C-alpha cells in the first residue's frame, strides 16, 4: 500500500499563532514561578503559625507569637514575591492600561478572572500576618493605625493564618489551572497541572526558607522540602503517565515535552526535562537532604535548595514553552 499524505498550505500570516502558538515569553513563566512560591510561602508560614499557636509545635519561640526567624522572613517575602510576579503579569498585557477591565467584572467561567480576584484577595490578610509576626519592629515605630491592626490580628491570628493557608493553596493551584483549562493546548490540558504547580511552589518556598533560615531552624525546612519533593516526584510521574497514555493529542504533546528535540536556550526539551528538572531539580536535592537528615553533613548546604529553586523555575518555562510549541488540538 502506498502511503497517503496530507499537506496543508495556508496563507495565514499571524505571528502569534504561526508556526505555532507564540503569546507568552519569559514574563508568564516567571510570574507562575513567583506566584507559586508566594503561595507556598503563605501555606508554610501559616501552618507553622497555627502549629505553634495551637499545639506548641515548631522551632524556637521568641515569645512574640512568631515561630521562628524563617517564618518572619517568609511572611514578608510572600506578598513581595507575589507583587513582583504580578508586575510581570502586568507587563505581559498587550494593553496594560486596560488592566482595570479585570476588576470591573467577574467572569465565572474564566480561570483568569477568578485568578485576578484571588491575587487581590491574597494581599490584605497576608500583609496583616507579615505585620504581626514582625510586630517587634513595627511597635518601635509606634504608628497608631499600625498598632491597631496588629492588636486586631493578634487576637485573630489563628483564623487569619488558617484562611491564609487556604488562600496560599488557592494561588498555588491557580497558577496551574490557568494553563490546564486550555483544552486547545494538549500539553496544558491536564487536570493534574494545578497539583504539580502547587507542590512545586511549596517545595520552592521551603527551599527558599531553608536558604534564609539560621542554622538551628534549617532541619525543619529541609524536612518540609524533602517531603514536598517526594510528593512532587509522584505528581510529575502521574502527569507524564496521564499524558502518554492519553489520546493522540495528549500523548503527542507529552512526547514533545519528555522526548522532544525542540530546543529551549540551546538544549532540547528532553534534556531540560529529565536532566535539569527531574535529575538536578528533584532527585539530587532529595538525595542531599536525605543525607543531611541521616547525619552526613554536606560541605555546601546551599546546593540542595538552590537546585530546587532552579528546578521550579525550569518547570514553569518548560511547561509554558513546550505547551506553545506543540500543535493545536486536532
Amino acid at each position, binding site marked *: 500500500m502506498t502511503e497517503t499524505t496530507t*499537506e496543508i498550505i495556508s496563507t*495565514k*500570516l499571524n505571528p502569534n499563532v504561526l508556526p505555532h502558538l507564540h503569546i507568552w515569553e519569559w514574563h508568564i513563566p516567571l510570574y507562575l514561578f513567583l506566584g507559586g512560591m508566594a503561595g507556598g510561602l503563605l501555606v508554610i508560614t501559616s501552618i507553622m503559625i497555627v502549629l505553634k499557636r495551637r499545639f506548641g509545635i515548631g522551632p524556637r519561640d521568641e515569645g512574640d507569637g512568631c515561630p521562628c526567624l524563617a517564618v518572619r522572613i517568609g511572611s514578608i517575602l510572600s506578598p513581595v514575591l507575589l507583587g513582583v510576579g504580578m508586575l510581570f503579569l502586568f507587563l505581559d498585557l498587550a494593553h496594560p492600561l486596560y488592566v482595570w477591565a479585570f476588576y470591573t467584572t467577574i467572569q465565572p467561567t474564566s480561570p483568569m478572572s477568578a485568578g485576578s480576584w484571588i491575587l487581590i484577595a491574597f494581599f490584605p490578610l497576608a500583609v496583616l500576618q507579615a505585620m504581626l509576626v514582625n510586630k517587634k519592629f513595627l511597635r518601635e515605630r509606634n504608628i497608631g493605625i499600625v498598632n491597631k491592626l496588629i492588636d486586631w490580628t493578634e487576637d485573630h491570628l489563628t483564623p487569619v493564618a488558617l484562611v491564609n493557608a487556604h488562600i496560599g493553596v488557592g494561588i498555588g493551584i491557580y497558577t496551574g489551572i490557568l494553563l490546564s*483549562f486550555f483544552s*486547545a493546548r494538549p500539553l496544558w490540558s491536564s487536570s493534574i497541572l494545578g497539583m504539580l504547580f502547587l507542590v512545586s511552589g511549596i517545595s520552592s518556598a521551603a527551599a527558599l526558607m531553608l536558604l534564609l533560615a539560621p542554622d538551628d531552624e534549617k532541619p525543619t525546612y529541609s524536612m518540609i522540602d524533602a517531603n514536598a519533593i517526594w510528593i512532587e516526584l509522584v505528581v510529575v510521574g502521574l502527569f507524564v503517565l496521564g499524558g502518554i497514555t492519553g489520546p493522540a493529542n495528549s500523548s503527542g504533546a507529552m512526547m514533545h515535552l519528555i522526548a522532544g528535540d525542540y530546543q529551549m536556550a540551546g538544549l532540547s526539551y528532553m534534556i531540560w526535562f529529565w536532566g535539569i528538572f527531574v535529575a538536578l531539580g528533584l532527585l539530587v536535592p532529595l538525595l542531599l537532604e536525605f543525607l543531611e537528615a541521616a547525619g552526613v553533613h554536606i560541605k555546601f548546604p546551599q546546593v540542595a535548595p538552590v537546585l530546587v529553586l532552579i528546578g521550579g523555575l525550569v518547570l514553569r518555562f518548560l511547561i509554558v514553552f513546550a505547551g506553545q510549541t506543540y500543535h493545536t488540538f486536532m
Partner: protein
Amino acid sequence: MAKQKNYGMVIDTRVCVACSACVYACKSENGVPEGYCRDWVVQETEGAYPKLRMENRSERCQHCENAPCVTYCPTGASHYAGDGTVQVNRYRCTGCKACLAACPYDARYVHPEGYVDKCSLCKHRLEQGLETACVSVCPTTSLNLVDFNEPEAKADEMMNGKEVYRQKEHAGTNPSLYWISASNKPGA
C-alpha cells in the same frame, strides 16, 4: 420585533479557486494591519500520487456557539453578540491573550495597537443589511452568508445531499461555519 438573527457561513470548497480575493477584501474593509489577517486561504492536498485530492477553502473565526475564547476571556471583552457572531470589545480587551490560547482554530491575533482582533463577520456591514466583504467579493460564490434562523433556509438547500463537515467538532465548540467538502466534486 424582527426575529433574532443567527449568522453563519456555508462555504462551498468545490468551487473555491484559492484566489485570495476574500483575504484582501477583508484587509481593506477592516483595516487589518500588514503582516496579519482575519481570514486566510488553505489548500489541502491529500492522498498518494497520482491519486491526489485537493481542497481549497477560505478560513476564519468559526463564530462558535460554545466559544472557548468567550469562556476564558477574563474581562468580558470577547462576547456573544446575540446575532450568532462572537465579537471582541476592544475597549475592554487587556491583551492578556487567554483567548488566543483558548481558540482551537487559531483564529485570533494581537493587533499592534494592543487588543485582540479577529473576524467580526463584518458586523458593521450586517447591521446595514449588507453581506460580509469576503462574501461580496468571492467570484465563485464559494462563500455564503447564512442566517440559520431564516425560515426558508437557504443553508439547507445548499447543503442537502452533499458531504458537509464542520471543523474540529469534537472540540465541543459548535462552530457556525459549514463546509461542503471538495470530495463532492465530480471525479473526486
